């Protein structure tokens, strides 16, 4: 089956889950260092600003990394699972994977919470996929092939008249 939307720049499926776990964790942890470093610095009293920043980073950056990592890894896990089950790669994979991730992460909050969180995640992923599709269509439109000008019509004035 041809899957023209398949992303060939990424690793094949089962192993890419680990890559996504690590990538998302690293992104969250490094971003959390910056975020909580600044926040801890600003929220500390004068004289303890650097130690406050370091303490905030130590306490919170790994947690941010963990949240990101679990989200990204679970998403990749469900995405791979849906690819294997549906045998195709399209935007619905991502949306369904988002639905499942949202549900899984809220699994301890009761039915209502699970459903709300799943739908929210699916909507967010739907917006992502929609924006991605619009962007790729715009790129295709902007780089569309242009027809060659027909040479033998009398449009050009001869250079030496």
């Amino acid at each position, binding site marked *: 089956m041809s899957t023209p939307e398949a992303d060939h720049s990424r690793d094949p499926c089962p192993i890419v889950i*680990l890559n996504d776990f690590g990538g998302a964790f690293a992104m969250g942890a490094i971003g959390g260092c910056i975020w909580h470093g600044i926040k801890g610095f600003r929220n500390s009293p004068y004289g303890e600003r650097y130690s406050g920043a370091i303490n905030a980073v130590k306490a919170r950056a790994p947690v941010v990394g963990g949240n990101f990592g679990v989200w990204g890894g679970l998403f990749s896990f469900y995405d791979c699972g849906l690819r294997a089950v549906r045998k195709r790669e399209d935007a619905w994979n991502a949306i369904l994977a988002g639905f499942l991730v949202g549900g899984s992460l809220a699994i301890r909050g009761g039915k209502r919470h699970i459903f709300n969180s799943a739908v929210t995640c699916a909507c967010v992923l739907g917006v992502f996929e929609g924006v991605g599709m619009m962007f790729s269509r715009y790129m295709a439109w902007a780089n569309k092939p242009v027809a060659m000008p027909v040479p033998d019509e009398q449009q050009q004035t001869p250079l030496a008249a």
Partner: protein
Amino acid sequence: MWFSGKSDESGSTPQNGEILRKEQGIPKKEENVQDILNTVDFEPEKLHPLAGLNKDIEYLDLDDEKLSTMEGSGNPILATRGWGDDLCYGAGTVYVLGLGFGGLRGFDEGLKSLPQPKVDPLTNKLRPVPFKLKLNTILNQVTKFGPHAGNTAGVLGIMYNIINSSFDHYRGKHDDWNSLASGFLSGALYKSTSGLKAMGISSILMTGVAASWCGLKRFVAHKQAASRFEN
């Protein structure tokens, strides 16, 4: 004409094939499409000799896809394309392992700290603990230990891989000393706010972990070489 779809019905000018047959004296015989197709050679390299179609499959040779060519950076377990792959796979593997083992430890702790059935003051019997309460106790412990171990391991993995890749970059090659030194430094950095003793302990532990990782890589490479030799 061939493009108008009409056949040339003038009759006075015979078709080219007729002329050829008359000149060469070949008798006209029944021909079908299969016969004609059999006479044509559809070898792609003959049809288009300049396109180089007689080669094997050629893969797109993109710069991003190239494996790392640094000396000594060959990883027998998983090929790597550079520091980004090292970081992502390293942190991801270590994080998932930490999450799993931490979760198991939390499961164990949860089983140990299950709520005990209490004596009902009215009936003087043991009141059974509801299943939801037991499940909640275990899940609380799992979600307490699992993410903590995973986060710790993941942060250590990120530090190790960033320092390791920096060493590789500056030295231009990778060897076990790079691994050991980055293990030592990442352990020291991880406990850098807890005093020299804690730093020393965690450095030694991380150096040991890095050494066992190097040993594992060597062991797997040795096994692979041995199996290749046997085949």
